[in-house]
């Protein structure tokens, strides 16, 4: 059937986990990643993303990303990062009610081994320590050719994701 979303996989986190990995990208379609109601187990911990290949995160310093950050109480501005090992998706995050992280992202060219893989993301979140609302809008590229089959969502400082729903959809043509 044309023009629909097909759920590839979904993960509901209810016990502390350091990483969420969603895989199942196996076609050249665009895929949509939805993160709903994510909280961390400690204050001021940011969240990052990597792409996976054969189920394992690609950790090489080949990610480039650009995004615009919007805050309610601090200077907004653009961020340009090249040759790094992951893509930073947020400021420090929240741990409790009304301080969730919510995001929609699109994954392009993941299953094309001859092209780089791309992600376009937009999210809205609040942190607990300052009650600061933040929103990141941008995208990133893994600048190595090769097929990717999913994403890894994590905090690299050692904090855990304490809750949230993470879903990967295939956009049917």
């Amino acid at each position, binding site marked *: 059937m044309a023009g629909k979303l097909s759920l590839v*996989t*979904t*993960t*509901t*986190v209810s*016990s*502390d*986990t*350091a*990483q*969420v*990995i*969603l*895989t*199942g990208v196996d076609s050249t379609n665009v895929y949509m990643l939805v993160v709903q109601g994510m909280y961390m187990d400690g204050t001021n911990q940011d969240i990052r993303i990597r792409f996976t290949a054969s*189920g394992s*995160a690609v*950790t090489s310093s080949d990610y480039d990303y650009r995004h615009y950050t919007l*805050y309610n109480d*601090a*200077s*907004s*501005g653009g961020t340009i990062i090249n040759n790094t*090992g992951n893509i930073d998706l947020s400021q420090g995050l929240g741990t409790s009610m009304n301080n969730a992280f919510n995001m929609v992202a699109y994954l392009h060219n993941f299953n094309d081994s001859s092209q780089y893989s791309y992600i376009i993301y937009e999210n809205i979140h609040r942190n607990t320590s300052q009650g600061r609302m933040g929103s990141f809008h941008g995208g990133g590229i893994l600048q190595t050719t090769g097929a990717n089959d999913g994403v890894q969502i*994590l905090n*690299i*400082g*050692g904090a*855990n994701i304490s809750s949230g729903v993470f879903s990967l959809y295939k956009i049917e043509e």
Partner: protein
Amino acid sequence: MATLDEFKSAARTEIEAKKTSNGGEGLYKTVNNVRMEFSDEDYEQAILDNATQNYEDQEYGYIDARRMDYPSIEDQLDEIFHNGVDSWKAIIQQVKDDNPKPSE
């Protein structure tokens, strides 16, 4: 100032203690809704990630910290308009002093 190797050493001590095989609570990943403890490879990557983040925070954290503390461009222009450049410079200098570069 700590070196990256020093941060790696500290991260190794901290993360090794978390392994269930060492009596810790473990670090876990959830893969397609299945929760499992880190593999040895995952633990090694976590050590590298933790050390890299701490090192980059030390070296470059002031950039984000200053960005968060600077008034908006509109407020800065308003400050210059109403109180002059010297008043504006004092506000900017305070942000820099509060968030110094590692070399300062």
